[in-house]
């Protein structure tokens, strides 16, 4: 004979409440989300990424040409040198002006007083070139669907 165990009403309520609690707990996921950009150089990278990507999108030959020029861009030490390199290549002339606009837009803000006052210093120039190059590489990677584009 099979014995049927009867649970008390209190046990049933506790059991149901536990299930509900577990379901509620499952609803909350760990919050990650993007962190706001704070510094001048990371903001430059974000703006440059969008600018380069927008100018190269739907144009694979231009993307290939740009990728081929990256090593020579990497040899530059100042923003002016980098922009001269870029504007020296006819298809990227306009892109050079647009990147300069991105930088000037960010640079004129009061919170970037340090970078503005020390704009010609080797330290600022080195970081600026590095920020622009990071944006260029990120844009290419995003267009080519690479993991670095994230």
């Amino acid at each position, binding site marked *: 004979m099979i014995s049927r165990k009867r649970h008390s009403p209190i046990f049933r309520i506790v059991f149901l409440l536990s299930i509900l609690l577990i379901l509620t707990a499952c609803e909350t*996921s760990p919050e990650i989300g993007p962190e706001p950009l704070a510094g001048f150089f990371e903001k430059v990278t974000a703006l440059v990424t969008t600018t380069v990507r927008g100018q190269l999108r739907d144009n694979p030959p231009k993307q290939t040409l740009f990728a081929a020029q990256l090593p020579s861009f990497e040899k530059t030490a100042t923003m002016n040198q980098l922009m001269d390199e870029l504007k020296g290549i006819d298809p990227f002339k306009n892109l050079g002006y647009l990147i300069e606009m991105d930088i000037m837009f960010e640079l004129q803000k009061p919170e970037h007083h340090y970078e503005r006052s020390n704009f010609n210093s080797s330290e600022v120039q080195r970081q600026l070139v590095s920020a622009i190059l990071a944006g260029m590489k990120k844009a290419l990677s995003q267009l080519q669907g690479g993991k670095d584009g994230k």
Partner: protein
Amino acid sequence: MANKRALVLSGGGAKGAFTAGVVKYLMVELGLNFDLVVGTSTGALIAPLVASQDIANLIHFYENVQQQDILTDRPDLLAFLFSDALNDTKPLERLITKFFGDRKRYQKLLQSSTEMFVTVVNMQTGEIEYGNQHQDSKPILLKKILASACVPVMMPPVKIGRYQYVDGGVKEIAPFGKAIDEGATHIISVILSPDAGHREPVRKEFTSSMEILKRTLALLTDEIVDNDLKIAMVYSEAIRYLDHIKANAKEKLGLPDSQIRKLFTGIENPFQGKRVVGITTIRPDEELMESSLNFDPDKMREMVDKGYKKAKEVVSQEIAQGTGFFEPV
């Protein structure tokens, strides 16, 4: 009276990435500043970043945010039975605090010369209300930004005092009305759906009640945004028409100003003190995406680039037409 340039940002969830591209073109490349920015829903998340000229963070936000950063699913049956919405917006609330609540960033918003408004609908009174950086305290403004993005049923209403608030898009998706009331003379509006002539029919049968609800909301949204734009256009045309009549009365009939003014006394003039408003509309040529909650990073980046390109195209057209709203670059 000085000219006042306003930016009106409509709702549209993830499609806000298109607006980010538009704003980057207008503010970074064209160097435009706005006296006023009014945003609804996703536009309310963009408005504070426009007012504080933080375009890098605006782009960064839309290119990196994912659906779980905005809302978390609640099991549908449980949500219907025990709560006020199908999704939980705690992640979005935390994101808003992170992006706008930070002391330095909030200070920048307070010091901005751009007046910012976000639209919300009061569930109890049914009226549209606004959040503003100078009229509201920080906690209230942050709550209103959240409420403005909360599509009813999909997302819970936000309690402020004894009232519950939801997405301003319930009544006004493209908030032209506020911009006009605040004295805008040129409005640049960003609308996140194509005009009626470019909308594609949906070629599938809707089988679940959720699908039908979503499609209904999409249809209502299109209707509201069409009406928002139509009303603003008619309003502007009406003022222009009245100005023409006044000019004709003076030039062709030789009436002095005092006589012309008499023609308008004794009747209520709904356009008293208002000026002609120029409207520039920037919107995509085709549907950007099927679901406005699809935060796919590749798609978002594509929309940013589309917005930038479209803004450039519209501005070039207006320069060629000589509307006088934009200076040649």
